């Protein structure tokens, strides 16, 4: 039995249930780092170059916090999780592509890194062979890995179903993995609905976005994110663009934003963007322009290690006030 470390960021928010199930089915122990904290951020900032985007810094912090606690670090190379994207080549931001190399070169004392290449567009059986490869690094047979893969897939499907019902990832994981009861929430009939789009590691990490979702929840606002939409819906939006971007998470944010812009029941769009993020320079301007064309209020919140809670709160409050005013006037 090995202890496998999974950093609590980046792909975690969409794929943790899959890999947790997989590793546990193989009889290993999964150690996940704690949600982002000040210490984790500081650890990350120490280890990374100054102009890296904040999610990459945080990722390094999570890895650093796991180093002494695990036998393997799970840091797969995400190349594509689409069977066929735009031009069949949709991939991830360059920083994702180079991540295992960065980690290896930064942490010379790290335990072995499982940096299996995940490139699902290569074929239908790809996920299974990836699982077999990951399993073999941990000493598991192909049969074991295949069975574990099957189980993990089931859990992943249930997880996606929960997200589609409007559950946020942390809660969906609690329900699925720990048998928690779904919390019931009441929304006032005349309450606002806001779509929050952006990278999962930006919108679901309350530390980096200084509790943005909670601020909205406290105002009894109904929150929608791109992860509540099915691939079918997202792909439909893709067809309306002259061309899609090349980065999976960016595209999801863009498609999600475009979808919600056209919905009458959505009062406004918030885009959470990472400071110094290469792709976001495009994503943000595109969404801003489209929102204006669709006459939908749009707020862009840029986050970095110096983002202060009060600053974000002020902007959110002003935005929400404006939405309420707009609704009352209508």
């Amino acid at each position, binding site marked *: 039995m090995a202890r496998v470390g999974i950093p609590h960021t980046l792909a975690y928010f969409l794929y943790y249930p899959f890999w947790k199930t997989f590793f546990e089915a193989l009889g290993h122990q999964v150690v996940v780092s704690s949600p982002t904290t000040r210490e984790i951020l500081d650890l990350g900032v120490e280890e990374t170059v100054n102009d890296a985007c904040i999610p990459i810094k945080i990722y390094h912090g999570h890895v650093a916090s796991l180093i002494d606690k695990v036998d393997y670090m799970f840091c797969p*190379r995400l*190349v594509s999780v689409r069977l066929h994207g735009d*031009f069949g*080549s*949709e*991939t*991830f*931001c*360059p920083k994702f*592509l*180079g991540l*295992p*190399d960065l980690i290896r070169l930064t942490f010379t004392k790290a335990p072995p890194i499982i*940096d299996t*290449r995940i490139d699902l567009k290569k074929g239908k059986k790809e996920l299974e062979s990836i699982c077999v490869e990951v399993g073999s690094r941990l000493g598991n047979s192909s049969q074991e890995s295949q069975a574990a893969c099957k189980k993990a897939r089931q859990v992943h499907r249930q997880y996606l179903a929960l997200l589609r019902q409007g559950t946020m990832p942390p809660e969906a994981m609690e329900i699925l993995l720990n048998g928690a009861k779904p919390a019931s929430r009441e929304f006032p009939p005349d309450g606002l609905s806001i779509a929050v789009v952006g990278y999962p590691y930006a919108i679901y990490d309350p530390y980096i976005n200084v509790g943005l979702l909670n601020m909205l929840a406290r105002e009894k606002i109904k929150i929608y994110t791109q992860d509540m939409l099915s691939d079918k819906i997202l792909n439909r939006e893709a067809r309306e*663009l*002259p*061309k899609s*971007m*090349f*980065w999976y998470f960016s595209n999801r944010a863009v498609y999600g934003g475009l979808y919600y812009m056209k919905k009458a029941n959505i009062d406004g769009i918030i885009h959470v963007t990472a400071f*110094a*993020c*290469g*792709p*976001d*320079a*495009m994503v*943000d*301007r*595109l969404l801003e*322009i489209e929102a204006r064309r669709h006459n939908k209020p749009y707020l862009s919140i840029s986050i970095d290690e110096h983002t202060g809670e009060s600053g974000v709160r002020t902007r959110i409050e002003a935005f929400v006030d404006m939405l309420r005013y707009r609704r009352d006037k209508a």
Partner: protein
Amino acid sequence: MKISFPRMGYSYIALKWLVENMGHECIVPPEPSKRTLDLGVRYAPEFACIPFKILMGTYLEVAEMGAEIILTSGGRGPCRAGYYWVMHNYLLQELGKDVRVVAFELPLDNLKDFWKKVHWIRKTGGLSVKEFIRVLKITWEKLKAIDDVEMRSHEIRPLEIHRGDTTRTLWKGLELLDQANTLEEIEEARREGLKMLESIPRDDSRNPLKIGIIGEIYVVLEPAANHYIQIMLGEMGVQTDRSIYLSAYTRKNTIINLEGDIFSKARPYLNEAPIGGHGVNSIGETVL
């Protein structure tokens, strides 16, 4: 139609010929200046990279000059450059400019779209398929000849006895190439250009330092974007060679991929290729 394109080094000479001989009017993009960059900075997103901003500025300038269509290339990522044209279009529209950016994606990626655009350009210019192919061929030769002459100039510049000779001669050679209209004339201009470069008084006893220039394609190719680094180094007595020439780039990337070698050299430093912006080529070619 009034057609323009991004300015990348001296390639505009060949592209101008192409546009004019396809039966369109060419708006030659001005060399990027302080104003170009200022315009770009003003209207591009803050975190867009410098090439995006310079191009944005250039597009606004050619729009002022009356361009209706800007031809450029697309790309498949993961670098942002392949998405530039979409964003540039959005931004130009927002500014109410009557100009459209039309991008050619790699034929490898979307053959149909590629042909559709090619035919559209050809038909609107009123050329027959045969003439069109002839024009393309000549443009290609012109592009290669321009690169040849420029390449040689970087070898000669560090040896020149009178500072500035090479750059002046290079321009003369480029003017000859500019005037050439047939394959024969291009070949002649190329030879003449090289001959003129050879006859520059020079000091062969110098043993110039050799520096390789690598980096992101646009910054490497457009002298105004890299502060004329090759000319500057040359006049300081340094021989430069750069990793990217437009004709070599298109030769490699359009139809087949001959870059396997470069990837393998970069592998010890970076496991995933490509990461975009010529990152891999840059690492690999430094090693080579």
